[in-house]
Each structure stands twice: as C-alpha cells, then as structure tokens.
C-alpha cells in the first residue's frame, strides 16, 4: 500500500484532542482516495440530518494515492468533503497546487475535523507534530494575507497554507477554501463550513519520503505522460487555456448571458481567450509535478484596475462576464481577484450577482433594496457587490445565502430567476440546448456542475443531437460520471483527462505502479461507479430524491430567444423525465433514483444498505446475508 500514507488524522476542535487511525486497505481499494475516501469518511463520521454549520458536521480533507509522487498532475491534489450549506447534501471540492503534496509528505491521507473551536484557530502540522494555534490576529484577513502571516510567524517560506477569507468567517454560503493564494476548493460552500468551526487555516510542513512500489515502471509511465502532455490532448490548456471556450460556446449559442436570459453574447470578442492571452496573460505556471501547466496568470496593464494580478479560467470569466452582461475584461479580472481576496467561489459569485441583476431588471427589488443600480453590464456595481456579499453588507447579506435561499427570502416570483440545481449556482453552459449535459447537471450529486460529468462533451462535439432528449443519454452520462469520480479520487487534474489514451487502463497502471495494489481497468471503473453510488447514498440519507434531480426554472420554461443554432430550445418536464428514467435504469437504480439492493450487492456496498432499506419497500429491501452468499 505504498503511495498511501496509511494514516488518517482526527482533529477535535472542541476539545483540542488529536489522534490518528490507520487507513484500512479495504477502504483504500474500494474508494481509492480524494472524494471517494473523503465521502466515505464523511459518511462514517457524521449523523443524518445534521446542520452544515453545526459542530456535529465534520469537515474532511483527503489526498489521493498519487499525491506526493511524480505522476504528472497527480502529485498535487486534495479534496474537501462535508455537508454542503447550499445543497444540504454532500458537498465536495478539489484544489491543486502544492498543498496536497505537502499533506501527503506530512504523512496523512486525510484529516477529519470534528467539533468547533472556541475561538479563531489554525492547525499547524509539522510532520507528526499537530498543534492548534491561536488565529485571533488572522481573523478578518484575506487568504493571501493569512498565508503570508503564517509563513512569517512559522519562519518557513515552504510552509503550505490553505485558508478561508472573510466570507468563510461570516458563513457566506458560497465561501471557498484557498491554498497558495490563488487555488480554490471552490464549490458547494465548504469555506463556510470551515468558518463555522472557527478554523481559519491549515498550515503544513511535510518532510517524509514518498516511496513508490515500482520505480522503473512509474518512470516509464511518467515519460509517456510527459510526451502526451506536449501533444494535442493538452493543447487547449497549454495555449489559450479554458477561456478558449468563450468563442466556441458563443458560436453554438450555448454561453449563458444575463442570468440565462440569452445564449449568445454580442461582446464575446472583447472577452475571448484569444484577446485575454494577447493583452493580459503575463505568465503560465504549473502545479507541483505537472507537465502541462495551465495556470494563466494575468495582469491588467492599465486603467482603473491596473496592476490586478490573478489567475483566470473560463468559468469565473463567464460568471462575472457574460452572465452579468459584463464585456469588460479589466473588470472581470478585478472581480476574480476580489473573489480570491474575500474567499468566495468565483463561479457562484457571478450567479448570485446576475440573479440580483435579474431581480432588479424585472422589478422584484428596487434600487433602495439593492443599494446599487444593479443593472446587467454595470461592472462597477458587480465589483461592489462582490465586496458586499463577501462582507455580508446590505443586499449582499441576502445574496450571501445563495440564490436558492435568497429567492425564498425575497418571495414572490424570485425563484424563477434563481438559476441553481440542488441549491448550487449554475456553471457556464446553457444546457437548454445541450440535452446530454442537462441530464448530467440534473443528477450531479453536488448540485449544478460540469465537473461531476463531462456530459457537455458529446453535445458540443456534435457526437449526438444536442437538442434531442432520447434514450441512450443515460449511458453516456453514467460513463463520464464514473470516469470523473476516479479522476477526483485517484486525484489527477481534469485537464489531463485526454492524455489517458486508454482511459481506466492508463490510470490503473499509474495506480498500481505507485501503490503496488494490482488493479485492472474494470476494477477501477467499478470503483468509479461505487463512488457515484456513495455520493447518491449520502444525499438519500440527507433526504434528497428524484424531485431534487431537476433543472433551473428558466432552463425548463424559457426557450433560448436568440437567433442562431440554439433558438427555441429548452428542457421540458417530459424531456427530463425521459432522461432521468433512462439514467436511473442504466445505473441500476429504482424510479426514485435510489440504488437497489442488487446494485449495492454487486458493488460490494452491502454495509451501506441500511440507508435505503426502509425506503425501498419490503420486496426490494431484502438484504443479502452471509448465509445466502
């Protein structure tokens, strides 16, 4: 079991006690690492129905078996897992950089935080020494200031820090956890969970050796991956970066504009990946062990936002750009920088502000309530609103609850403008005209997200008729979900997915060379399926069901109005039902979207049958017992 550190660290913030437990080989084999092991540890260490901000709600962070090794993009990941204050189901978010590497070097596969610290605290791990430190002086500071302050007081520049900003402290439901100043575990609001525990930061220094089982085999594979990463599979990420999507999606009429009002953006040229690179990108940097490097660091060269320095990807660019009607890249980059400073998810922040703009436009709130002229395209108002959400000031305090809860508070027709799935704000694909993707989004266990599946792939590439809901899409979604679950559990970067020419076989080879656990492609795929069932089971335990596998009101009721290829498309209830039925069937789930006993037995998840037993009805709930085997 090399590759794994073999230890899980428990930190009880209430009592200040810390202890370790060994990582069981069975857990490692079944759930691999990252979100897989993270979700299983979450499940086993939590009670159903816990409020996300209760001390009883544990926060888990896990590395993958490849973290700390030289596997390109694999050496550096980590995944946070807890109950999401947005979806009230399972929340998870990954980040890369150097932090995950350091956690493994310190000798831990995962940390589980229990309870709540009495006062602001940060955790300082120096290999086997684990200390809770006073963080009173760090409270109110940005993640960037926090990192500098901690490095200064620990007097070691190579200490790696993950921390929350003011938004996390103030329980803003879209708060994220930022490591190394610009890398965010962004989605599902886990920064607020960390804030609810009075935990400001986790600082790491690790000096243990990372030993792999088959060094020669691993080096062969590393060389192969290095070569592939120089090729076409990684071209997009190496050259323009994800902002390449702007013109691609815009041409398809699939880039949401003004809070999913339109599907094309007239000012797309002004915010394109091409223009971004020409004018703003100063340097492209990489995470630990990466042979691709994708992090496009931009600097605003002149004007009111001169000197703004930030990383940018398509999603936040879209969220604070077209989705808010903003065609000014200087302002979008400033917005990205502010998101990192306040510590909010830079995708959801755009969703919150565009929601506010939509309410303002449609007269559900007035200027007095908004506190600003919150018009689409008003980039100054957008930037001010990031601050107000981060600080929970004025109308920002309402928006800080996320669009779903905010819409409930505002009442009337506000829910129609709340573009979310399971309480998590949408990402930058107009799924009205991307039917495979719409299914992927609807069933994603962490709510609206393109990263739990890659289901926009077949739609955008033209492999399927993207306007049609038909049988067969369930299989496509299931396949990509299983692969993505493995990518997030073995933890390699999603951007490297194209370099595994043989899919699971390549990933299994890397896993086996590092860990010495022989695993073939099918076993790894099965683990991916298991992890998706695990995510679903946690959600079922928390009361989610088929009714939650749904789409934003606009997606289901307002056809895309723009002239162009996507005109008139939307996802009807009939479409959605057809897609869900097909998907549940290929997953081996019942009509309510619940894993059956047969499926759980097949996946070796009998131990979790208790979650669905009562809900499946007497016939179906027959549990396989030892004597029957």
């Amino acid at each position: 079991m090399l590759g794994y550190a073999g230890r899980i660290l428990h930190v009880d913030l209430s009592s200040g006690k810390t202890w370790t437990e060994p990582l069981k080989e069975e857990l490692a084999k079944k759930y691999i690492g990252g979100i897989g092991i993270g979700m299983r540890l979450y499940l086993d260490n939590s009670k159903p129905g816990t409020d996300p901000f209760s001390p009883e709600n544990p926060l888990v962070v896990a590395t993958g078996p490849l973290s700390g090794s030289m596997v390109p993009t694999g050496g550096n990941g980590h995944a946070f897992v807890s109950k999401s204050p947005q979806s009230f189901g399972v929340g998870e978010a990954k980040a890369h950089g150097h932090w995950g590497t350091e956690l493994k070097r310190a000798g831990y596969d995962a940390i589980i935080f229990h309870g709540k610290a009495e006062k602001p605290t940060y955790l300082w791990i120096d290999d086997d020494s684990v200390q809770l430190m006073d963080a009173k002086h760090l409270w109110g500071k940005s993640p960037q200031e926090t990192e500098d302050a901690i490095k200064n007081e620990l007097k070691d520049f190579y200490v790696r820090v993950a921390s929350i900003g003011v938004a996390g402290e103030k329980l803003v439901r879209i708060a994220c956890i930022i490591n190394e100043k610009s890398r965010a575990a962004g989605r599902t609001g886990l920064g607020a969970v960390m804030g609810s525990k009075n935990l400001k930061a986790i600082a790491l220094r690790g000096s243990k050796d990372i030993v792999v089982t088959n060094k020669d085999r691993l080096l062969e594979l590393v060389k192969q991956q290095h070569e592939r990463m120089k090729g076409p599979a990684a071209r997009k990420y190496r050259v323009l970066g994800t902002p390449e999507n702007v013109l691609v999606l815009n041409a398809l009429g699939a880039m949401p504009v003004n809070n999913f009002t339109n599907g094309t953006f007239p000012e797309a040229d002004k915010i394109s990946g091409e223009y971004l690179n020409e004018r703003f990108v100063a340097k492209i940097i990489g995470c630990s062990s990466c042979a691709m490097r994708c992090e496009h660091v931009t600097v605003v060269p002149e004007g009111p936002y001169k000197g703004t320095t930030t990383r940018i990807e398509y999603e936040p660019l879209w969220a604070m750009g077209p989705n808010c009607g903003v065609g000014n890249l200087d302002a979008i980059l400033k917005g990205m920088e502010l998101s990192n400073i306040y510590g909010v998810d830079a995708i959801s922040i755009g969703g919150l502000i565009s929601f506010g703009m939509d309410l303002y436009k449609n007269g559900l709130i007035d200027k007095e309530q908004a506190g600003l002229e919150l018009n689409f395209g008003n980039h100054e108002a957008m930037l001010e609103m990031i601050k107000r959400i981060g600080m929970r000031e004025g109308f920002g305090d309402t928006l800080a609850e996320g669009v779903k809860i905010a819409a409930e508070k505002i009442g009337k027709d506000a829910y129609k403008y709340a573009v979310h799935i399971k309480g998590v704000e949408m990402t930058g694909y107009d799924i009205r005209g991307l039917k495979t993707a719409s299914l992927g989004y609807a069933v994603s266990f962490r709510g609206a997200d393109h990263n739990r599946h890659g289901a926009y792939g077949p739609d955008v590439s033209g492999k399927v008729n993207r306007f049609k809901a038909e049988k067969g899409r369930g299989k496509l979604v299931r396949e990509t979900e299983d692969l993505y679950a493995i990518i997030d559990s073995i933890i390699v970067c999603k951007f490297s997915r194209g370099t595994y020419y043989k899919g699971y076989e390549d990933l299994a080879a890397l896993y086996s060379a590092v860990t010495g656990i022989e695993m073939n492609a099918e076993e790894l795929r099965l683990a991916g399926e298991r992890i998706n069932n695990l995510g679903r089971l946690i959600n079922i335990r928390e009361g989610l069901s088929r009714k939650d596998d749904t789409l934003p009101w606009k997606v289901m009721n307002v056809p895309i109005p723009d002239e162009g290829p996507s005109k008139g498309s939307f996802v009807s209830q009939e479409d959605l039902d057809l897609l869900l039925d097909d998907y549940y069937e290929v997953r081996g789930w019942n009509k309510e979207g619940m894993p059956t006993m047969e499926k759980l037995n097949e996946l070796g998840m009998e131990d979790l049958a208790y979650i669905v037993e009562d809900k499946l009805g007497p016939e179906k709930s027959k549990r396989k017992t030892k004597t029957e085997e």
Partner: protein
Amino acid sequence: MATAAVPKPQAARWKLVSCDPEKCSGCAVCEYICSLTKENVFSAQKSRIRTMRLHPLINISVACRLCSPAPCVIACPRDALEQSEETGVIMVNDDKCDGCSWCIEACDYGAITLHPEKKVVRICDTCDGDPQCVKFCPEEALDFVTRDILSQKARLAVTKKLFKESMETAGIKP
C-alpha cells in the same frame, strides 16, 4: 586551503544546471526526479535542486553554480568539500562532513542542503554529466551549459529584444 581561492582557468569548460526563469513554471518536476534518481524516493528536502515561487510571476529552480573559487569549499572547516578540476562539481566527503552547515551559509544561492537523515550536505553532482532534471523539465527551462553558452544565450535574448522591431521589418523570425 589558500590555493582554493584562485579561480581555476578550466572553469570556463564546466557545465552547470541553469534555469531560465522566463520559462520556469514552478512545477518542481526537477525536485521529484532529482530525489528519485539520487535517493529512490520523492522528497523535496532530499533534492539537490530546489524550486522557488516568490510570486505567481516569479519562479526559478536553483542548483549548484560551480563557483570558482567555491566559497563553500573555502568555508568548510573540515576539508570535507573538494571541487573537481575536470567538472567543477563539489564533491562531499561523507566521512569528513559533520553537517556543521558553514558551507550552506557560504553559498549565495541556497544550492546546498542538509540531508535530513544522514546529516551531511548534498550538492548537485550533475548526475555525472547527464542531469536528469534537465531531461525531465517539461518546459525546457533547465539547461546544462558552460558559462560561455550562458552569456551567449543572454546576448541572443537581449539582441532579440532590442531589435525586435527591425527584425520584424526584415522578416527575421526570432
């Protein structure tokens, strides 16, 4: 060791591992391959080359510069360090080295590290003239070069920068 203070005439021929900060992405692949090659493990602390990211825009990897005369050799009170006349590599005599770290203080580049378990210092030995970090660097930011080639590279870069416009006019692609 008075003789060590005189620059060696053959130093011009020595090749060192040099990093171009314009290209370096801070990925630390050099640290990984170095520790694997030398110690059979992945460990930043056991790597003879170290990556530094001061700011997203400022990344560099640092290994031994093969100084001549070498301040580390001069600083060592136990004569545990010796510079190869042929390659310029600083050779560490593990029997003599007691980890006192005077050499670490003497090195202006932070290119010397103390081995965390053996408590003796470790310095880049250029993998006997075939540095693995240079081979594996995905950005080709690392180079194994003589000082002469280094200055040539710098001249090329500055010339291209100075004459960028004229070159475009003349149709020369940099």
